[in-house]
C-alpha cells in the first residue's frame, strides 16, 4: 500500500488551504489517486496558524487526518515549531526561504517561494500556487500537466495565465537534485 501524507502549513491568509486543494485535486481527479484533504484553522480569518493536510493513497483512505507526515510544507516559522514533530524522521520539510529562518530537520529543502511570487508575479498572493508547483515536482506524484489543468479549472478566466505561470515557476524552482531527496517511503510503499 502506498500512502503519502502531506501538510501545507502557514499563517492564515497565506492560502495554504487552496494549495492543498489544488494539490489534492490534481492528484485525485487527474492522476487517479485516492485523496483526502482536510484542514484546520483558528477562529481568526487571518493571523493565526493554518494547516491543510492531503493524504494520497492507492487504497481508500479511512482516517482522513495526517498522522506521520511524509512532507511538511512550512510557509511560516511558527508552523515549523508546531508541526515538525509530526514529520517522519525520513520525511521532508519544504520551507519558505523568506519566512522560515530555521528548520531543524535533516531533510529540509528551503525554497524562495514567497520571493518568487513577489518578484516574478508581483504579488505575494501567489506564493501558495508557486508552492504547489514546487511540492508537486518534489513529491513526484503529479505531472505538470495535471497541475495546470487543475489550476485552470479552479480560477476565474482572467487569472488562469498568471496562476499557470505560478505553477511553472514553482515547478522550476526545484532542481533535479532536490527530487532525489524524496523520502524513501514515497518510493517504496
Amino acid at each position, binding site marked *: 500500500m502506498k500512502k503519502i501524507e502531506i501538510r501545507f502549513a502557514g499563517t492564515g491568509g497565506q492560502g495554504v488551504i487552496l494549495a492543498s*486543494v489544488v494539490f*489534492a485535486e490534481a492528484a*485525485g481527479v487527474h492522476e487517479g489517486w485516492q*485523496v483526502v484533504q*482536510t*484542514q484546520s484553522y483558528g477562529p481568526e480569518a487571518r493571523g493565526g496558524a493554518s494547516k491543510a493536510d492531503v493524504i494520497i493513497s492507492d487504497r481508500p483512505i*479511512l*482516517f482522513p487526518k495526517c498522522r506521520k507526515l511524509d512532507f511538511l510544507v512550512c510557509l511560516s516559522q511558527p508552523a515549523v515549531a508546531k508541526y515538525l514533530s509530526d514529520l517522519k524522521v525520513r520525511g521532508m520539510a519544504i520551507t519558505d526561504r523568506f519566512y522560515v529562518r530555521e528548520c531543524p530537520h535533516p531533510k529540509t529543502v528551503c525554497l524562495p517561494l514567497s520571493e518568487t511570487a513577489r518578484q516574478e508575479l508581483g504579488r505575494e498572493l501567489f506564493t501558495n500556487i508557486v508552492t504547489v508547483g514546487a511540492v508537486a515536482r518534489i513529491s513526484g506524484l503529479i505531472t505538470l500537466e495535471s497541475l495546470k489543468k487543475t489550476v485552470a479549472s479552479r480560477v476565474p478566466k482572467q487569472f488562469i495565465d498568471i496562476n499557470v505561470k505560478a505553477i511553472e515557476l514553482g515547478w522550476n524552482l526545484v532542481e533535479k537534485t532536490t527530487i532525489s531527496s524524496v523520502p524513501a517511503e514515497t518510493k517504496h510503499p
Partner: protein
Amino acid sequence: MKQLLSGNEACAIGAIRAGVRFFAGYPITPSTEIAEYLSRELPRVGGTFIQMEDEIGSICCMNGATAAGVKAMTATSGPGFSLMQEGIGYSIMAELPCIIVNVMRGGPATGTPTRTSQADVMQARFGTHGDHPIVALCPWSVRECFDLTAEAVNISERLRIPVIVLMDEIVGHMREVVELPETVKIWRPDKPKPAPDQYYHYDDRNNYDAAIASFGEGYRIHLTGLTHRKDGFPTDDPEIIKWNLDRLRNKIEENRSWLWDIYYEDIGSETVIVCYGSAARAGMEAKRQFELKTGRRVGIVRLRMVWPFPNERLIALLRSARRVIVPEMNQGQLYREVERTVSLRVPVVSVQRYDGEMLTPEEIIASL
C-alpha cells in the same frame, strides 16, 4: 465526472438533485460553504437563496417556503441549531417537510467554532420542547453527504417531517474525489390529492406517503403550531390533542423499520464497534489496523441514521457480540442509547474524545 468536493458542497449538490429549490440561512462556521454554494447554484435552477437576519428567521422562512410547496432547507451549526429549536418544533407540528443541516462544531455556547464535535446528537433528538418525532442522518464521507442529504429530502417528504442531517466539521470540510450521479431518486406520492372540498390537511390517511396541498393551490389550508384537528384548526379537546400527538409519534413508529439505515460488517465478532459520522472513519480504520495486527476480526455497526434509534435492529445485530464499543466525539451521548438498548445482554464501553480533535484509531484500539 470525477470531482474533488467538500462534504458541504456535496450536501448542497445532493439537496439540489433531490429537488430542493429553497434555502434560507445565516452564515456560521463550519456550515457556511453550503449557503455559499447554494447562493450561486439555486438561482440557476430557478430556486431561491435568501440570507436571513438570523437563524430563527431562517428556519421560519424555510417553513414558509415549505408551506408554499417548495422543497426547502437550511444549514447551520450548534449555536444556530439551538436558536432554531422553536422553529423545528413548528415544522414538526405543522408537518412541514424540510431539511436542517447541522454541521457540528465544538460546544457548548460559542465553543470552538473551527473544531469538530459530535455533541449535538442528543440535542437533535430532544432540542425542542414537547414530545415530537425526529429523523436524523449522519454521513461519514463526502459521498454520503450527497447521498444522505438526498435521502433526507425524500424521507422528509414521505413523513411530512423535518429531517436533520448531522454532519460535523470534519465531514463538512473534508474533500474527497467523488463521482456524483446526475439524477437521484425523488419520492413522489402514489395517489393524487383529493379535491379541495374533500381534503383534510391532517387526514388519517395522509400522515405519511401522501399527496399534500400547499398554499396557492386553492385548498385554503390553515397551518398552526397549536394542537389541531384534522382540518388544521386549533383545538383544546384532550382526545384530539392525543390524536394529534399520536399522529406525530406514528410517523416514526410505523416507519422505523424502513427508516433505519445501518451499515455493518463482521457482526459475528466478539467485539463490535457501534459508530456514526466521522468518528466511524476512525472506527473503521481501528478495525482494519486491529485485524491486521491481531488477526482477530472486529465487528462494525455504522449508523447512517441515528434517530430514530434502531433499538430492535441493534439488539439483533449485536446478538452474538461480547463487547460493544461506542466511539464518539463527545462525552458519550449515543452511548447512552446503545447502553439502554443492549446493556442487558452485553457490556457497552464509551470511547470519548471532546477536545476538538478527531478521535484516532489508536484510541479505539486501546479499548478493543
